[in-house]
């Protein structure tokens, strides 16, 4: 079992003929993900790696029955692409795109929330259910099937921890990067709830960072509703106030969003908090 995606997921790639989209489509196919086709407006009727290309998500869904979409288009087009997928009845949209203005994402969420669609991202590495499906850019070789759920706001830090878990012989159910932007479709709490409900997930690793209060909300959920053990790491303890650290969402504003406040909240909620991400496997033993 896994959350959100498995080997029954049928995936289309929006931006499949682009450089990024094309590159990662090949990697996803190599991993064994069921890529059903792609969408590039104006290129409907063409083929990419043996998969059909459509002009619209609606026609792609009609023909292929896809239920998941990966959005790999530039920031200027991504808000539109997400809404198109949501309105076409896609169940899960994963958006890799970085640099989308917050105002656009707020509008997108208003539209997406009117449909039954779930958005993961933007500015995220996507999802990987080891051995079943990879939707996004996470390198497949770092993960092994198992019973740890991993959720993170970051990319390479996630890889680091997933790799450490695999090296320690602890496989994963699903690894998911929810994205480093201030406004994202799926929160830590959403994912923690899915892991709590997933029978195969026995333990959870959560990787947060400075900025916002998503980890504080996660701590509250862990305290009140999680029965499974949780290990956590918060990046940015050494970051100064008021300065953005790479991710658009990683900024300490006043006293809100500090690493210390998040570490305290998670610790008080019963999570085991690592000082160093390499300790995570030990904390989950």
């Amino acid at each position, binding site marked *: 079992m896994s959350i959100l995606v498995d080997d029954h997921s049928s995936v289309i790639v929006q931006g499949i003929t682009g450089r990024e989209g094309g590159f990662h489509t090949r*990697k996803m196919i190599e991993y064994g993900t069921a890529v059903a086709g792609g969408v590039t407006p104006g290129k409907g009727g063409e083929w990419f790696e043996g998969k059909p290309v459509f002009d619209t998500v609606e026609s792609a869904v009609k023909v292929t029955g896809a239920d998941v979409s990966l959005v790999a288009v530039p*920031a*200027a087009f991504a808000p539109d692409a997400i809404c198109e997928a949501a309105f076409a009845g896609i169940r899960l949209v994963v958006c890799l795109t970085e*640099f*989308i*203005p*917050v*105002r656009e*994402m*707020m*509008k997108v*969420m*208003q*539209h997406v929330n009117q449909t039954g669609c779930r958005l993961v991202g933007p500015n995220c590495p996507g999802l990987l259910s080891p051995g079943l499906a990879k939707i996004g*850019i*996470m*390198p497949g*070789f770092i993960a092994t099937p198992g019973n740890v759920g991993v959720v*993170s*706001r*970051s*990319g*390479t*830090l*996630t*890889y*680091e921890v997933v*790799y450490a878990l695999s090296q320690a012989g602890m496989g994963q159910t699903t690894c998911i990067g929810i994205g*480093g932007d*201030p*406004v994202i479709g799926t929160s830590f709490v959403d994912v923690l709830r899915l892991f709590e409900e997933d029978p195969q997930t026995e333990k959870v690793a959560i*990787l947060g*960072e*400075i900025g*916002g*209060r*998503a980890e504080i*909300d996660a701590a509250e959920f862990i305290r009140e509703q999680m029965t499974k053990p949780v290990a956590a*790491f918060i*990046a*940015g*303890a*050494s*970051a*100064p106030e008021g*300065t*953005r*650290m*790479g*991710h*658009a*969402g*990683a900024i300490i504003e*006043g*006293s809100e969003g500090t*690493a210390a406040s998040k570490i305290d909240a998670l610790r008080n909620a019963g999570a085991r908090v690592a*000082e*160093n*991400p*390499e300790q995570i496997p030990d904390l989950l033993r």
Partner: protein
Amino acid sequence: MNLHEYQSKSRFAEFGIPVPTGHVARTPDETYALARQAGCAVVVKAQVLAGGRGKAGGIRLANTPEEAREHASAILGMQIKGHRVRSVLIDPAASIAQEIYLGVANDRAEARPVLMASAEGGVEIEEINRLRPEAIVREHVDPVAGLFTFQAVRLASAMDLPRKHWRAFGQIVAALVRCFEESDAELAEINPLVITEDDSLLALDGKMVIDDNALPRQPQLAAMHDSSELSGAETMAREAGISYVRLDGQIGCMVNGAGLAMTTMDMTLLYGEAHGIGPANFLDIGGGARADTVATALRIILSDENVKVVLCNIFGGITRGDEVAHGILTACEEVQLKVPMIIRLQGTNAEEGRSIINEAGLSGIYAAGTLTEAARMAVDAAGKNL
């Protein structure tokens, strides 16, 4: 991107918000001329991208042009929270009957902008929130539909604003929300919005923060970027598309990915803090690690003379460790590295990458296995070089 007060207020004015008719001066003599022109008492205000200007003595009232010149001499060149004051704003002094706080910011969790107002303006919103949170009233703004007129009425009513000011206040609220939306702002704040003794409303101070991601579609605002506030290294990083923040430690960090970059900094502090050692910078080289990008990153890091050692931490996902190793070695030769460098490669072809580095046998370059080991080695090396 933060805007200066004078930039924020001129933006407010474009949307119809009443602001004082101020002008910017860069010298005491310009200040004198502007104060004379104003023909009344003026306020000389440091234009610097930092808070706490008032407390630092960066905002002063002048009753005569001579006094204004004196104040400008004192304020220009002043350091406020590490920022040098290069210009002052000369505003005509206002007679203040009441100070109001009015601001719009993004509420991340709600995914909607939130309007905040308080009848107790003039101090920082965080301060009001700490002391009297009930004195702040809030209205969320629908990101698609925009502000409804009744929301401004609700604010005015909740903050007990005298009724005769409701109309003017409502217009300012609507204008501020439009300004916030159309500027792709993360924050648009009037503090204080004053009611003057002759019963008009005036935005005495303004602050705007623009979403960096929106700058490509906001050329007018992007042009307001004050590059004099950036160091040479920050300018170089900005041009190369590298995310760089200078800090005050000794370990120069070069990492791929923002989360891992922060983590690497944290590790150097975790093991170094007891010895007074920590990160010299945040630096994310982004995806891949081509020799030219690595070389630029190294130049940026080494332009900081506090750097005693470079810690390079790359997790190869799509990028292969052997390619990264070659890139780093080429870059080290190009830059003529004079401080030790700890390289930690993990992920795809990491073994190959490590042996390439070891076999190159360059003095002062060491390969590390784990992040813990790499951070400890960097702390040791920095300690020896202090």
